[in-house]
Every structure is written in structure tokens, then in C-alpha cells.
């Protein structure tokens, strides 16, 4: 088990997959991170050197991830709402924000567009 950014990862887990389990790290950010520390595509957690793990942990701690990122997103929506902007109102109503049609196909908007956005 290797402890990275508050999470224990199995030795055999892929570094790529492990990193992407954090909210705020997708394929592109992950690729950049791995390139930065010279980790190849198919590397597993056990292949990482201590130095790489420490550097990675240091880098992750400077990034806005997980709850901080979620809070940031919520704050952004809240700001729109407080200004009384159209986008803020649409978020509050759980409707599409960017001019999409509302007759059909607004399941994603209903799920995501809240002032207190969950995911």
C-alpha cells in the first residue's frame, strides 16, 4: 500500500488510474503529471521510486483538488446566483444554462445544475 494525497493505493494499481481517481485529475492533467515525473504509461504504483512519490505528493498538494475544487465550483455558481445573472437563475432552476433547448433532453442539466452542486 502506498499513501498518496491521503489515499492508500494498492501496489499493483496503475499509476494512471490511481491519479485519475482524484476529483480534478482527468486524462490530460494525469498525462502532464506523469510526464513531469517521468512515469511511463503502464507504470504501477510499486514501480515508483520514493523520490517520485514525494515529488508527486508535493505537486498534488499545490493543486486544487477534491473538496477544494468542489467548493470552488460551488462558489462560482453561487456568485452567478448572487449577481442575479441569467446563468445563476438557470442554475437555481436546474435548467440548461447555455441556451440549449428544454423541450427534451435536459436530464444532465436537471442532475447537475444546482446552486449547491454535488458533483
Amino acid at each position, binding site marked *: 500500500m502506498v499513501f498518496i494525497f491521503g489515499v492508500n493505493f494498492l501496489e499493483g494499481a496503475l499509476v494512471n488510474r490511481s491519479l485519475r481517481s482524484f476529483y480534478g485529475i482527468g486524462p490530460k492533467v494525469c*498525462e*502532464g503529471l*506523469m*510526464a*513531469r515525473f*517521468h512515469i*511511463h*504509461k*503502464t*507504470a504501477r504504483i510499486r*514501480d515508483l521510486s520514493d523520490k517520485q512519490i514525494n515529488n508527486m505528493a508535493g505537486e498534488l498538494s499545490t493543486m486544487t483538488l477534491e473538496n477544494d475544487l468542489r467548493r470552488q465550483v460551488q462558489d462560482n455558481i453561487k456568485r452567478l446566483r448572487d449577481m442575479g445573472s441569467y446563468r445563476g437563475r438557470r442554475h437555481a432552476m436546474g435548467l440548461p444554462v447555455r441556451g440549449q433547448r428544454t423541450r427534451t433532453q435536459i436530464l444532465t442539466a436537471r442532475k447537475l445544475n444546482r446552486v449547491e452542486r454535488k458533483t
Partner: protein
Amino acid sequence: MASLACPRCLRRSLQDLETTATAIRPQRAAFSTSPSLSANPPKKKAVVAKPSTRQGSALRLTKNTRATNTRPPAVGERKELRKKVVLSNTNALEVLGLNDLSKENLSSDALHALEAKVMGFGDTSVDRLRALKAFKPTQGWNLFRRPASLVRKETTHLLGDIEWVEAGQGSRTVRKVLYGERGSGKSVLQLQALAMASLKGWFVIHIPEAMDLTIAHTSYQPVTTPGGPTRYAQAHFACKLLRNIRDANNHLLSNLRISGEHDIPGQLKPGASLLGLVDVGVKEPARAWPVWQILWEELTLPSAQSKGGPRPPIMFTMDGIDHIMRLSAYLNAEAQPIHAHDLLLPRHFIELLSGRETLPNGGMVLGAVSESNRAASHTLDHALARNEAIQNELTPPAWDPWVKYDKNVQDAMEGVGVQRLQGLSKEEARGIMEYYARSGLIRKAVTSGLISEAWTLAGGGIIGEIEKGTVKARV
């Protein structure tokens, strides 16, 4: 035949009626006067529900479940099976009089006489080639009793090159790229070159798939030189390569001693054997690249200067070099793709191939590229066409000013010899097909008609296709 009807009243005979009635009516007394209604009416048959086609009341899904009485394959088991190289088939007939490639017949004249014949590999050769991973699972070794290969025109040429290098006593190097279509025998020709060089006491190095070096499936570490560009070492690959080299060249390494002064990692004394040095790299991947560098420095010491025994010529081969003639899948710290020539191990091969680095004790650098199913590298394609035209004293195709070429590849391929492998001649096709027949793989008589047919269907004697058409195909 008498009619059954009564001739007077034109009615049918009673007897006949009685007899037929019994079959269709319920049984009752023939002359009873009681009305038939007073009798109990014949029981109606109970209505039986028609059985439905579907058995059972619920939908059975168990039929769809996969049988789980077998254990799932272990990690790496399937890959191992896929990559397994089988070199013997006990069901194949043993070919009588099959000679081995040996030191005795390794001269151009002797081998020239053996052209279009199949020669086996001795046990030692097989062990060394296997250690180098020179046999590939896609080749048909598993069909025959023991590994053997056809001596073709190109094999003799290669031996001629080897002899030419040896005659130069260290001052000569052959740098060559073999190319040709799929199944034309490039890899096997490389294998023959390795076998011949090994028999002649050369140091042999082989990278069976250049792709493994560039698809970012093995670790890489930046190596910075002050003021110079960043290059990348591949520790785990170097470690594996050192192991292959150690197994294949054990007899040479144990006799050669470290001669120069090096910052040797581990507990090695200055006069230790090179085998001990290689072992350090094999045990620890982190030290593999420095060990490779020291090993190379030692091997390329001019024999006159080395205190640790005369250094042998080197045969360095790589298969699928198209992959190291383009950007690799590795990324640098800025997430930009790294050129394959900036990876140290491929770079080393390229330096040798291009002649920028020399082999003071002589040797041969041999690459192979397929013309089908390969990594796109149009600069390499153009360079191959150009070099071949120059070799044949034809006008070389010009570099198109509107196409962006890879400068690294252009420079690397400048002045490299190329050889395009084509189909076998009819005599060579006869040689290999007779060998198939003697191994019991062709039942028909090998006539010139059959040979011509196989040769033509194989696109003009492409050896892989001949094998596919005559031996592997089951109609």
C-alpha cells in the same frame, strides 16, 4: 374381384359394415334391443391442456451462465502462452543428412556450395539464439523436428560481409538495413547473421522488437549532461537486454577482463571478468545503464590496448527499426513527445548504424524493417529508396521541398547500406519444399509443377507465403 355390395338392393354388405364399424365405433353388443341412449354415454376424453413449448414457469437464465469450473488464467499466463517459442515438433520426421551450420562450413565458398539447401542450427547456436530472443513465435519453428533454415543467396552475401570485416582486422564495419515485404525472411536472415557471427566468435547483441523501446511500456529516466540536451535512459529494458547478452555471450564474457579504470558500481575489482560486470547490471536495473556504458567502453577498446584479452568484433542487430525512426510515445517534462533518437539505447544503435560511432574491433550493425504493417516514418521510406538507388547507381529520388522530413532520420540514414529482400529463386524454393517433404509436412511428390505453383502463389517466392501455402494451409 367380387364386389362387396349386395347386388339386389345395391347396399353394402352388412358384414363389411360390422367389421369396419368395430374399428370406429365404441364396442357394444351386436343384437341388443335396448336403446343406446339408456346406456351410460361414453366418457368424454378429459381435455388435456396442450403442453406449452416453454418448460417451467420462470425464465431460466442459468443456461446462459458461463461454466466456472475452470480457474481464471493467472497474471501474465496468457501473454506467456502467446509469446512462447516452440522449437521442436516430435511428430515431424527427422530429416536425415541435415547438416548444421558449423565453423567448418562457414566460409563463403563452402556456404556458396550449400546455397538452396537447408542447414540446421547446432545445440549451442540454438541456446544462444534463444537467449537473444532471436526466434519469434510467429515463425514456423514449431512445425519441424529441430530448428533449421534455408541458405539463400543473401545469407552467403552476409557471410561475405562478415569475412570482409574479419579480413580488415578491426578497421571495417558493415552498416546495413534489410527491408522487404512481410514474410520475406528479414528476421530469419538477421538470425542467420547472429548464428554465423556467434560461431565465428563475435560478440552478439540483438533487440528483437524495437517497438518495445518506444511505446512507453518500460521505465525511463532523464540523463542530463551539463550544457547538453536531455537524453533518456531505459533502465529496465537495459537490464533485460544485459541478461540476454550475458546468456548468449557467456563464453566470451567470462574470458574477457576489465581493462580500463572505471567508476564501477558494486564490489568489482579492476581485473574482474566482464561477466561479473554484466551481472551487476542484471541484478539491479538502476545500474543497468551505467553498466551498459562501461561494457561498451570495454568491448570497443582496441585489442592492442586492452589488457584484458583481445576484444571480439561485435554484431549488433535490431528488428523493426521503423519504430526508432520517429517520435516515441514517451513524454518529456513539458509533456511533449520525445524523439526516439533521444532515448539512449536506440540512440546508441543509431550512432553505430550511421557510423558516427565506430567499432574499433570491427563488426556489423544490422537493422530490419518490414514494408507492411509498420510505424509510419516517411523519412525512413524515402531514405531507403534513396540509398538503394545510390547503391544501384541510379538517380536517387530528390527530397521533396514541400514535405517536412525528420532531420534526425535523414542524418542517421545518410550512407547506410540497404538491402531489399525479395522472393526466393526457383532453386531455393525447391530446396525449402523438399525439406518440407522430408519433414513429412508435404505428402505429395515435390515436382517442378508444384514448386512453380507454390512459388507463383507466394507472390514470386516470398518464403513466408510459401510456408503458409504449402505447410500451414489445411484445405
